[in-house]
């Protein structure tokens, strides 16, 4: 048995070697001239470019349009001919088809939208030719510019997993993918669990700061091509690298088979949520249900009662022990660009929130978000806040305070956690399995508008636990349902309560109104589920129905007897 498997393995290795040699041969044969510029399309392309593209990419394609200095992923500077998402080898020019795909599907996670539903196909083809003509440092027509298709050889995923969520990739492949990730040191940039928290010092070819992709947000992968959960996107990027960035290709280091496994692992970290086809982001969970908990609610984030995957439970079933835990709700964040020091490039675009409550301990809110690095500057702590209408009882109908800091007539109650890591944390540290405990202080604020935010005395809100684990900040808030404070929100059960969130990335020098915000969501304190009452009622209703059936039988039999006895005459003939 043992001997058999080893020979099988050697055979496999030999075959794989042969196969890769033959493929390499084929690939070399396919080395070809870059796609030349199609001159006849330039004029049409220029028209499209100057109406649609010039605003970000600039008049000469230098990536210096009016919007450029407020964008975090800068618009592409075409002049050097450096393009990220391609099927060609590292450093090479893209194929026409790559550029067409980029324009058609956009670059998710950046400001580049998908133009496929907006422009006609011939307009896209034309504008791509015009963009190629903006490249100055290299020439698409140059004889030395050869390109090699390094992606076709990948084929499609070996497990025949299908979209949109690509279920059914075996766990062994994912586990092996993790080993490949560690062996190739992907964590040095992407972090221990892929939150992109590995390296804070990276720059792109133009000297702009750049961070590694977070594998937990595959909808923000630039090369997602609007098919966010497809492991192909990852396998492609591993094969081609991203020109202009520190991301190299791993063609020589990782075999095709292993690239797929690595892709499967990377892909498995991305929460399966329903993606909005228009915005290319997960659809927010607008109702946060706080689960009633009979016994003691644990104030430890690591407690089993708080564990739940980010996945939508409707898409991926939860394990039995987690099935009754509150689900993680996806909250979308945007930059605050209304007042004061505006935030055009927030560092987090979402939060995950789950909640439990009971009469004795009050309301628990576990807020988590991916944040690549932590600030150690006491002036700029990492911050996250929950915002409530302070005077819920005064609101009429759907009325709410203004969604950022309230307004003069309708105040808001803000529970803000300021977090600071200990001395053991450095943003260049290697991934740490158990994470870092955070020192957290709570501020309770009353907001009556941007200019009227004051701190409350003698607050009741507690942060009972907070941790930074592999690029994710987790904070647990707790407060009694009712308090004495005049400006404290009084939390009723079984009622929809507006709630909003705010977040400050201290490492990016965010504070006060320079922040990320959400719009109003709703939370509801679910009433305890009285299963005994429900069971009794069900039995009573069933029993009543049995009685009804008995009565029906009796009635029917009686009528039959009356017919038989001739007491009643049955209608024999039609009219």
């Amino acid at each position, binding site marked *: 048995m043992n001997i058999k498997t080893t020979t099988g393995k050697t055979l496999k290795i030999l075959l794989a070697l042969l196969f890769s040699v033959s493929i390499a041969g084929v690939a070399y044969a396919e080395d070809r001239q870059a796609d030349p510029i199609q001159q006849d399309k330039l004029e049409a392309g220029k028209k499209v470019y100057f109406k649609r593209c*010039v605003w970000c990419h600039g008049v000469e394609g230098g990536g210096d349009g009016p919007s450029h200095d*407020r964008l975090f992923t800068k618009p592409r500077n075409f002049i050097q001919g450096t393009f990220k998402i391609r099927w060609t080898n590292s450093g090479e020019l893209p194929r026409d088809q790559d550029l067409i795909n980029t324009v058609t599907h956009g670059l998710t996670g950046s400001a580049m939208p998908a133009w496929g539903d907006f422009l006609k196909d011939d307009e896209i083809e034309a504008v791509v030719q015009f963009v190629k003509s903006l490249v100055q440092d290299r020439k698409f027509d140059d004889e030395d510019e050869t390109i090699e298709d390094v992606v076709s050889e990948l084929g499609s995923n070996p497990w025949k997993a299908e979209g949109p969520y690509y279920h059914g990739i075996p766990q062994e492949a994912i586990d092996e993918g993790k080993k490949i990730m560690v062996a190739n040191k992907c964590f040095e940039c992407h972090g221990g669990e892929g939150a992109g928290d590995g390296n804070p010092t990276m720059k792109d070819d133009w000297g702009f700061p750049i961070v590694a992709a977070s594998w937990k947000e595959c909808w923000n992968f630039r090369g997602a091509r609007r098919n966010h959960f497809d492991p192909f996107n990852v396998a492609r990027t591993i094969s081609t690298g991203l020109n202009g960035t520190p991301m190299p290709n791993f063609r020589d280091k990782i075999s095709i088979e292993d690239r797929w496994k690595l892709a499967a692992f990377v892909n498995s970290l991305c929460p399966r949520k329903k993606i*909005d086809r228009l915005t290319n982001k997960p659809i927010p969970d607008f109702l946060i249900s706080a689960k009633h908990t009979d016994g003691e609610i644990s104030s430890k984030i690591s407690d089993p009662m708080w564990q739940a995957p980010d996945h939508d439970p409707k898409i991926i079933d939860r394990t039995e022990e987690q099935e009754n835990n509150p689900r993680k709700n996806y909250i979308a964040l945007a930059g605050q*660009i209304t007042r004061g020091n505006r935030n055009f490039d927030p560092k987090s*675009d979402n939060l995950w929130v789950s909640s439990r409550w009971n009469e004795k301990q009050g309301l628990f809110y576990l807020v988590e978000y991916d944040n690549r690095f932590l600030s150690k500057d006491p002036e700029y702590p990492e911050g996250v806040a929950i915002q409530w209408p302070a005077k819920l009882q005064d609101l009429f109908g759907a*009325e709410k305070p203004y*969604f950022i800091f309230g307004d003069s007539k309708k105040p808001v109650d803000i529970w803000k956690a300021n977090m600071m890591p200990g001395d053991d944390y450095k943003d260049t540290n290697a991934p740490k399995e158990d994470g870092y405990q955070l020192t957290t202080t709570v501020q309770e604020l009353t907001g009556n508008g941007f200019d009227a935010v004051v701190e409350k005395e003698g607050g009741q809100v507690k942060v009972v636990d907070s941790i930074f684990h592999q690029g994710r900040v987790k904070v647990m808030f707790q407060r009694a349902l009712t308090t004495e404070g005049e400006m404290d929100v009084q939390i009723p059960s079984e009622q929809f309560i507006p709630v909003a969130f705010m977040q400050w990335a201290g490492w990016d020098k965010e504070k006060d109104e320079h922040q990320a*915000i959400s719009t109003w969501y709703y939370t509801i304190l679910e009433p305890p589920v009285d299963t005994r009452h429900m069971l009794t009622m069900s039995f009573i209703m069933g029993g009543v129905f049995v009685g009804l059936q008995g009565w*029906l039988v009796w009635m029917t039999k009686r009528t039959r007897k009356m017919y038989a006895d001739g007491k009643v005459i049955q209608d024999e003939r*039609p009219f």
Partner: protein
Amino acid sequence: MNKSFLSLILAVAGWAVFHNGLFPIFTPEVAGWLQNRYVYYLLFCFYLIFVNVGMRLKPPMALRALYVWLLGYYFYDSILTPHIPWTLFITYMMLWTIGTFLYISQDPTTFREFRAPIVKTIVGEYKLARIVVFTLLPLLVGFATWNTLYPSFAEPVELRTVHPAPPSTTKVHGKTYKLEEIGNPFRTDEQDNYKDSFPFIDKTEYMKNVTEGGTVFFENCHYCHGDQLNGLGMFSHAFNPTPANFIDPGTIAMLQESFLFWRVSKGGPGLPNESTPWSSAMPPWEEHLTTDEIWKVILFEYWYTGWHPRTFDTEGSTAE
């Protein structure tokens, strides 16, 4: 009895073949004169009639009534497209049920024939049927009770007016404007003359203003309203209501420029209550932009989308 069993088998099997085999063929992406779902439905009805009449199966009244009722259900649930809302579906099915009942009770004989198997089940002549029905129904009632009692919550629906009535005047940067009287001061020429002009390069006065408006737009507005002005900017996913889509014929295409001027200047906080000012993320742009910049952005939005602003009918009012 055997014959009616055969009828039931043929009906179920026929439906399975029709629904899985023929239905996809009859529902191509572009429906034809013959190749469409309604023709398919008629064919299925003919099949059912042919099988029962042609083979002289004479199914009992109860089974016939079941066929009729199910045909209606199948039509409203799967054939009729687009699918009607469930409230309407229930209304239609109630009418259909009444229709079926009329068919049953057209004369006392058919009605009795329909009743016969039910009565036989109740009194126990069909023993097995009685046991099955009389145990299943109470269980079903129990389960239904459990499901109704189990608390579940969905987010509340909130309605809002997308384009509220504008105020008659608005005060921007210390100056009061009568919305009915103002127009865009930069709309100096027919917009269509410039639809193929290049911003930044074309040095005409009009294109200069469009360029400046576009610059303001791409510095401030595209985060929400999007690079395509379709309301799908980078931040749009975070907001509810979603940012306005200017490509849509229901927004700037049907509004006057003065309305836009008011909305841009005052933003979400300037909305009346029926438009939920508390959840609108639209900033009051008068705090960041000059009056001229606001008018230029509006000029740009019409140039980019190709829409023409609505105008007040000045001729009609002067003729009075």
